[in-house]
Each structure stands twice: as structure tokens, then as C-alpha cells.
């Protein structure tokens, strides 16, 4: 390890750079908060407050010293094909991230970091158990600049020593606050909770049992923060399209800006909850290979609540070439009612030469869309009852995420035919799939011709 260059050195490739010098303060603040939290818990124990105060006071310099050391020892370098990240105080680690395998780049700004003008940059690569290379923290302009640079290099462009230009973007949809709030109010959990709570209050009023009022409280208390959390987390949700991928921005307190490069979306699910149907709203979720572990559910939302037109526009960008008129879904045989008496009519599968479409749900409608070239493996399974009925379930596996493509209760022979067809279609699609470096793209898609 050579002696480190000056902080915020000129951002040309090949030199090692450092994180922002305020990083130890922000990191140290976390250590301090953790110690205080532990100390507060111990207050109820038999430790005297004097010792606790000492412990808290001692934790400040220790935390800052460790944070400073850690900052001194952290360097990163953007190469032609990779990002090198050197970290660790006691155990040194040098990590190399291949940029052609880049799945997503997120710029996350927690509340405290925002106040200081800092941001964390996360690189997502398939196969890790968490974010592969979190760069916390950078100054905001540096984070934006680095993101542009990483994406340009991942795309196969090399701007030499010039800073990579930030790609222009076109906004596809924004979610107005009013719609976000109403959508949260229209979720089953919230409505159920409030109804249950109100019912309790009414029963209490009628019967004169005041203790029932206490029972109503938890229902209301659980329902309200869940809805509030959704609004705060998805506040000002914006989806934009740019040559380096899909840009997702949202958040009230902690803001998050995700960039998912073209071709990195593995599978898409369009969800239409019952209570949203009268409004014509849908939610769009996707599997992105890098998003695993905690926060996966949140990171995988492409649109928390969108109109059908907006969703169609979004799908045209995410799954170019999708024409849902080409895909004619076929249902399941009537004998499937023995296994799914209420919703068997809603189960359907269709495909064209590019995509597989799977539908399910009578009240909460779900539509899964999967490009054939993203298929990892295909399965059919048959339980004991299904066997008696001559039915089987088709599973099409993609990378982990909220979208699990399962077509239940097909006619058994039909399921096998679908399996063989999917395997063949996937093989054909892989052969012509767009390269990892997406700046050599195939023919452009011809506009949004998607109906949901």
C-alpha cells in the first residue's frame, strides 16, 4: 500500500481516491448513538450513572479515532474495467468489482448526511449477500460524478481523463403526494386495521365496556405508522429514462437515487390491488440481480403507484419490444377448481418470442413479465393431488427478488409443453441477447405499444 494521495484528488482514472473527510464524523456519530442506546438500556440495571457517563464520554474520542483510521485506510480507484476498493484497519481487504457485471448504482443520502452535503454510493453486483462496494461517504457532486463515470465505463465508453458527462434524462412518471397518500389509505391492511379499530370502539360504546377501547388502540397504532412509512419512503417518487438506464428517485428524510442500467431488469410484476382498481392504479415491481438482503423489497419497486398509461410507458422502457397484444394468455382446465376454487379462472400463461407472461389473482391481480433471455432455469412440479387431477405447476426461475414466476395448476401435458417451449425460447433469446456493455445496443424498440 503506497502512501495515500491527497483527499479529493483530481478524478482521473488510475489514481486512488479517498472518501470525504467528514466520513469519520458521520460514522463516529453512529458509534456514539449505539453506545448511548446501550447505556440507556443499562440505566435500569445496577450500573451507576457516573460510569455510564464516563463510558459515553470515552466512546466519543475512540469512535472518532477509529473512524479516522478507517477513513485513512480506505481508498478506491476506478479503472478501465473495474473498481478497486481498499478498506480495513486491522484486516486489510482489497476488492475488485467488475464493471461489466454492474447491476445497479444507488446514491443514498441519509438525513444526517444530507445536512452535511454528503451521499453514499452503492454498487450492486449480482451474487453478493449485501451491497458489494458501498462508498460512504462522498460529497454530493463527487457521488454524482462518480456514478456517471462508473456507468459510462460499465456501458463500454471511455472518456479518457475527461470527466464523464452526466447522461440526459427524460422523466417517465412522478407520483403526486395526493395519489401516494390515497394509495396507502387504500391498502387492505390499513383499511382492515381501521375498520377493526372502529368496530371495537363502536362495540365498546354500545356495551359500555371501556376496556375494549384499549383493544382498539393497537389496531390503529399498527395500521397508521405502516402507511406513514410508505408515504415517507416513497415521497416524490420519480422515474426517468436515460441512456445509462432507469433512474428512480424518492424519499422525504432519507433520499435514494437508483440507476438500473438497460437490460438489468430480470423480471417485472404488475400488481393491481382490489382497492386500487376503481382508480386504475397499479404497482410495478422488478427483480434486479444486485438487490438482495435487507431493503430488497423497497429497492425493487419501480413504481409504487402508477396509472395504467404510466405503467405502460415504464414497461416499454424496462422491457423494450414488449407488445402485450402479441401475448395471448391461456387459462387452466376447469378441474383446477378443486385446488384453487376461488381464483382458478384468473390463472393464465402466454408467451411470444421475447417474453413470458403469467397472470394470477382474481381480487389482487398480478401479471408477471419475463424476458426469455433472463430465464435461469425452468421447472415443473406435481403434488399428490395435482397428480390425481392431471395438473402440474410451472416455475420459471430468475434471480432473487419479489417476482417469483409461478404458473400453477396447468394441465400436466400442457405444463411440460410450456417447459420445453420456454427452454427453447430462452436458448434462442440468449443467443441474440444484448451485450453486458449496453452501449452497443440492438435495434431500438418502436414506442410504447403495451396494454395492461
Amino acid at each position, binding site marked *: 500500500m503506497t502512501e495515500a494521495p491527497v483527499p479529493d484528488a483530481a478524478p482521473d482514472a488510475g489514481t486512488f481516491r479517498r472518501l470525504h473527510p467528514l466520513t469519520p464524523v458521520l460514522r463516529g456519530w453512529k458509534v456514539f448513538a449505539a453506545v448511548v442506546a446501550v447505556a440507556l438500556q443499562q440505566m435500569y440495571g445496577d450500573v451507576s450513572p457516573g460510569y455510564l457517563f464516563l463510558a459515553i464520554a470515552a466512546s466519543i474520542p475512540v469512535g472518532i479515532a477509529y473512524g479516522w483510521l478507517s477513513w485513512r485506510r480506505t481508498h478506491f480507484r476506478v479503472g478501465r474495467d473495474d473498481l478497486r476498493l481498499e478498506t480495513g484497519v486491522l484486516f486489510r481487504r482489497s476488492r475488485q468489482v467488475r464493471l*461489466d*457485471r454492474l*447491476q445497479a448504482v444507488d446514491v443514498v443520502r441519509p438525513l444526517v448526511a444530507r445536512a452535511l452535503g454528503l451521499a453514499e454510493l452503492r454498487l450492486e453486483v*449480482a*451474487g453478493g449477500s449485501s451491497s458489494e462496494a458501498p462508498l460512504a461517504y462522498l460529497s454530493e457532486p463527487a457521488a454524482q460524478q462518480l456514478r456517471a463515470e462508473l456507468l459510462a465505463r460499465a456501458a463500454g465508453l471511455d472518456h479518457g481523463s475527461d470527466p464523464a458527462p452526466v447522461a440526459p434524462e427524460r422523466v417517465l412518471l412522478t407520483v403526486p403526494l395526493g395519489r401516494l397518500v390515497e394509495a396507502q389509505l387504500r391498502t387492505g391492511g390499513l383499511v382492515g386495521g381501521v375498520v377493526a379499530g372502529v368496530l371495537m370502539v363502536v362495540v365498546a360504546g354500545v356495551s359500555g365496556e371501556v376496556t375494549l377501547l384499549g383493544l382498539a388502540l393497537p389496531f390503529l397504532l399498527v395500521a397508521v405508522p405502516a402507511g406513514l412509512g410508505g408515504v415517507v419512503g416513497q415521497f416524490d417518487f420519480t422515474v426517468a429514462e436515460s441512456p445509462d438506464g432507469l433512474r428512480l428517485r424518492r424519499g422525504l428524510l432519507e433520499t435514494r437515487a437508483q440507476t438500473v442500467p438497460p437490460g*438489468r431488469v*430480470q423480471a417485472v410484476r404488475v400488481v393491481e390491488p382490489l382497492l386500487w382498481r376503481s382508480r386504475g392504479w397499479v404497482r410495478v415491481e422488478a427483480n434486479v*440481480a444486485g438487490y438482495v438482503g435487507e431493503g430488497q423489497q423497497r429497492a425493487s419497486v419501480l413504481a409504487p403507484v402508477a396509472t395504467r398509461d404510466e405503467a405502460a410507458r415504464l414497461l416499454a422502457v424496462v422491457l423494450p419490444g414488449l407488445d402485450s397484444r402479441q401475448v395471448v394468455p391461456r387459462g387452466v382446465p376447469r378441474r383446477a377448481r378443486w385446488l384453487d376454487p376461488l381464483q382458478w379462472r384468473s390463472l393464465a400463461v402466454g408467451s411470444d418470442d421475447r417474453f413470458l407472461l403469467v397472470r394470477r389473482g382474481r381480487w389482487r391481480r398480478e401479471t408477471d413479465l419475463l424476458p426469455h*433471455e*433472463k*430465464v*435461469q*432455469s*425452468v*421447472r*415443473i*412440479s*406435481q*403434488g*399428490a393431488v395435482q*397428480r390425481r387431477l392431471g395438473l*402440474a405447476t410451472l*416455475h420459471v*426461475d*430468475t*434471480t*432473487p427478488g419479489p417476482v*417469483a414466476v409461478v404458473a400453477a395448476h396447468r394441465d*400436466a*401435458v400442457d*405444463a*411440460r*409443453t410450456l*417447459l*420445453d417451449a420456454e*427452454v427453447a425460447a*430462452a*436458448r434462442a433469446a*440468449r443467443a441474440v*441477447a444484448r*451485450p*453486458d456493455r449496453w452501449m452497443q445496443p440492438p435495434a431500438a424498440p418502436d414506442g410504447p405499444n403495451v396494454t395492461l
Partner: protein
Amino acid sequence: MSEPFDPPGEPWVRVSPRLATVRRIGLLVVWVPLSALLVVLLWLVQAWLGVLAAVVALLGLAWVWAVVGRTVRSWGYAERADDLLVTRGVLRRQLVVVPYGRMQFVDVTAGPLDRRFGLATVQLHTAAAATDASIPGLVPAEAARLRDRLAARGEATAAGL
């Protein structure tokens, strides 16, 4: 095609019947002490309860014993030009197709009992966690051959995510 779990044109390669022996030994090691413990405990409460438990445990053992044989006979795999097919299961049947190009890595594992009987398990992993393609009960030479062939085919047809 007449049956959904038919082999793909060529017959299934079946796994070694010795796998049944290994599984049965494993079964005895777990089943016998557990049910003996249960029988003794119930016998201490009520003698007839203990006898009943012993009968149920024996019948259960006989049934699982038989099912192990059928399960082992149900495993099969077929190597095609572009993908590997694996089928298995008696109560819940399954057929999985894994394209070689989708393979991330291959594991060959063998526990102490497996090694004693000269068996090994080959497992394929893709980027999808749900992919469930493992082949137990292979003789080590066949396991090694399969691993090498899968690795070679995977390299030749590898695709980006």
C-alpha cells in the same frame, strides 16, 4: 409426448441403488433412538400407550423404508446438448431444466456415509436461488466426469445475467 415427466427423447440416467442403503442407515440413526425415547416415555405414563406408540413407530418406519426405495429410483438425469435435466420425487414430482450457460458453479459433495458407500452428490447453482438441481447417489468417477463436463459446457455457452 404422453406423460409430463417423460425423459427428453433419451432415457433417464438413474442414480446408484446404494443411495437407498445410505438413506436407510441415516433414517435408522435418527428414527430408532427418537421413537425408542418416545415409546419409553409413553410406556412410563401408560403401558398401553407405549405399546401403541411402538406399533405406530414400526409401521411408520416400514412405510418410510419403502418410500426411500421409490424416491431413490425416481431420481434421474439427462444431459442434452444445451441443458441438464433432473427429475425426482414420488409424492411431489419435479423436473428441472438448467441450461449450461446459466450455471454459476458446480458442487460435488460427499458425507462420511456417502464416502463409505462410494457415492457423491453433484449440485448445480445458477443465479436463481430457486434452482434446485442436485443429483445424489453418483459414483465418484461419474460425479467427477459430470462436474467437468458441466464446467466445460458452461464455459462454452456462458451468458451474461
